């Protein structure tokens, strides 16, 4: 599964994107963020406050309880500050 990161989530993780094998049992966006947070210090830092990090599946905003099955690309990013 392809993961992409933006803004300070990208900086904390230390890379803009990666492809990961998500373990069985990780089925929602929130569970994915929780699993990522266990992958090392940089991930723990990026996902230290899971309520703040937003997500998109295949370029659409999703809520934490959204299933990740079938997703081609999942993005994690801070609240948006454009405009």
């Amino acid at each position, binding site marked *: 599964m392809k993961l992409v990161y933006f803004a300070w989530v990208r900086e904390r993780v230390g890379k803009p994107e990666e492809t990961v094998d998500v373990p069985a049992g990780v089925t929602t966006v929130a569970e994915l963020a929780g699993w990522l947070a266990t992958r090392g210090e940089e991930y723990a830092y990026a996902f230290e406050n899971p309520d703040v990090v937003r997500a*998109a599946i295949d370029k659409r905003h999703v809520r934490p309880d959204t299933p990740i099955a079938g997703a081609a690309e999942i993005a994690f990013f801070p609240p*948006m*500050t*454009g405009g």
Partner: protein
Amino acid sequence: MDCPVTVRVQAEDFDLAAEVAALTRGRTDVGAVVTFAGLCRGEAGTLAALELEHYPGMAEEEMGRVARQAAERWPLQGVTAIHRHGRIAPGENIVLVVTASAHRAAAFAAAEFLMDYLKTEAPFWKKEHRADGTSGGWVEAKEADDRAKERWT
């Protein structure tokens, strides 16, 4: 009603007058055009530039979705939304919204709606570069922007 929707995400500047002209050229049914341009503030000389990061593809999709929502909600004759990315210096343009309608109420409301949604839904993030050479960090999202959006629901 057929309402042309134009959405662009670009590094280069935009020309406000040209974008207005593109919506009104050859038409005699447009009675009101509202434009909103968002510019980079210098913060009293402390800011060297803003860096606008975006999610390519999703940024265009979200802006298009919001623009089409506006066109469904108000009787518009044209909508244009342009958002820049990359490094933007104080005084430069960041974002443009243009709405055209027969009457001003729809054009004003749709422009405000578009900006309220773009600020909270379009995947852009601002990072500050300070005039003293340090990074000012990422701009934090404002609760006031969320509240501004909620008034339309």
